[in-house]
């Protein structure tokens, strides 16, 4: 076990833990935002640079500060490390700059985007974004394309975090999409609009931090803040069957995996509870689900706006209209 200090809070973690995971062990405000790192996906992280933190003292043996900000998602902790995140002015300025870079080519079409309300880039922009843009050139544009008949890809919104590529690599047996081109031309694509036919390909939608990959069965149906997220289970042979159904009245509008406060899929018996495409896209009939009750949503989230029912611990919730 090594001891590190993050924003003045001491925490003991195992050697080899990354700074980001040490901060998540503390929780709360000291956790740096992460757009590309996804703890359930091997090899993710290190791309978006939003999680950069300042290391004020490298370790107990060598307490010199690190010369540059480091990516907390891929930097392992060392004993006696002193890390500054919220308390560092440098980190704050840098995060604003990273946000500006991520938004350079972003179309800012949140009123249209289905991800609005649960988008990490929106949260990041809300906290660190500038009110205006300094970018005068034309933004890069791609036409939205269909990846299979259930997933829509809006390349304009993509921040190239590679999470969806890793889902395809690590969850499914065959990957048919990837990042084509380099630099400004880099885009997520399939060869000749190849359909992604795999039982777990829908999880790309859940891992996408922005609205680049969205559910076609939910496309423009509603907005997330009009829906009620309910915990539900179903009998499924392919996946754990533990999901969140987003209801409007008695109808199920969409199904997603259960996500924790970092937007990552929750664990089920020590394994991430990915859900299969059958559960996600096909089961829109409430009779097929065992609905357990409303999901706990942070009351500051827009998703809990205009919802008046309380989370019922005994699961005998009655709908309040």
């Amino acid at each position: 076990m090594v001891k590190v200090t993050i924003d003045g809070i001491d925490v003991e973690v195992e050697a080899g833990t990354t700074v980001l995971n040490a901060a998540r062990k503390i929780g709360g405000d000291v956790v740096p935002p992460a757009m590309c790192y996804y703890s359930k996906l091997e090899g993710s992280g290190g791309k978006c640079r939003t999680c950069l933190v300042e290391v004020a003292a490298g370790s107990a043996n060598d307490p010199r500060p690190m010369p540059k900000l480091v990516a907390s998602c891929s930097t392992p902790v060392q004993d006696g490390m002193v890390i500054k995140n919220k308390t560092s002015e440098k980190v704050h300025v840098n995060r604003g700059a990273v946000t500006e870079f991520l938004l350079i080519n972003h179309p800012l079409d949140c009123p249209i985007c289905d991800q609005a309300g649960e988008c990490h880039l929106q949260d990041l922009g809300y906290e660190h974004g500038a009110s205006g843009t300094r970018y005068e050139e034309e933004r890069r544009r791609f036409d939205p394309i269909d990846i299979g008949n259930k997933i829509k890809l809006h390349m304009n919104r993509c921040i190239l975090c590679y999470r969806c590529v890793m889902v395809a690599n690590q969850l499914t047996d065959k990957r048919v999409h990837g990042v084509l081109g380099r630099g400004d031309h880099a885009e997520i694509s399939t060869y000749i609009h190849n359909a992604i036919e795999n039982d777990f390909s829908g999880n790309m939608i859940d891992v996408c931090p922005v609205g680049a990959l969205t559910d076609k069965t939910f496309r423009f149906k509603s907005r997330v803040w009009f829906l009620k997220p309910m915990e539900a289970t179903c009998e499924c042979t392919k996946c754990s069957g533990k999901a969140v159904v987003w209801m409007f009245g008695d109808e199920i509008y969409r199904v997603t995996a259960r996500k924790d406060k970092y937007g990552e899929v929750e664990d089920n018996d020590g394994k991430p509870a990915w859900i299969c495409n059958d559960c996600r896209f096909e089961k829109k009939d409430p009779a097929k689900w065992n609905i357990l009750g409303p999901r706990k949503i942070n009351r500051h989230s827009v998703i809990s706006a205009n919802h008046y029912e309380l989370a019922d611990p005994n699961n005998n919730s009655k709908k309040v209209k």
Partner: protein
Amino acid sequence: MESLSNRRKVVSNKKMSFVESLYLPAVVSGMWITFKHIFKKRTTIKYPEEQRPFAPVYRGMHVLKRDEQGRENCTACGLCAVACPAEAITMVAAEREVGQENLYREEKYAETYEINMLRCIFCGLCEEACPKEAIFLTDRIVPTNFDRDDFVYGKDRLVETLDHRIDVTNRQHTGKRGTK
């Protein structure tokens, strides 16, 4: 206990004198005040013939604006509906088809958009929430009606027509478009 506001009045049960109990002096002085007002400037107007000017930010009937090219601004983002404290606004979104680019500005549009004018309290929060400068409150008054159903205004009565544009230049513009 001593009153903190200093506005407390002690109730008195003073007995009226004989002259006061006649009420006649009080009636006469009241009538005198009424009579004096005959010669004063009138504060009322005869409404349908005469009309008062509206304040530039008067909050009356809504309008759904079109842009300069006549395309509908509304993209059915739902922010007006979530901002509405009276839950008066409902909408259904639809995707713009190829060939409809001259009708709708964005790739999503409101297929139906309804405001229940009986629920609406004309607070203007929808106008403030709108990121697309689509909905504005105007100086028009919602007309009276006999049926409750007729107060649910759909797109047919909310969207401005191409030959009869509603001027909202005096109103607050919350977004970037059209300002500066």
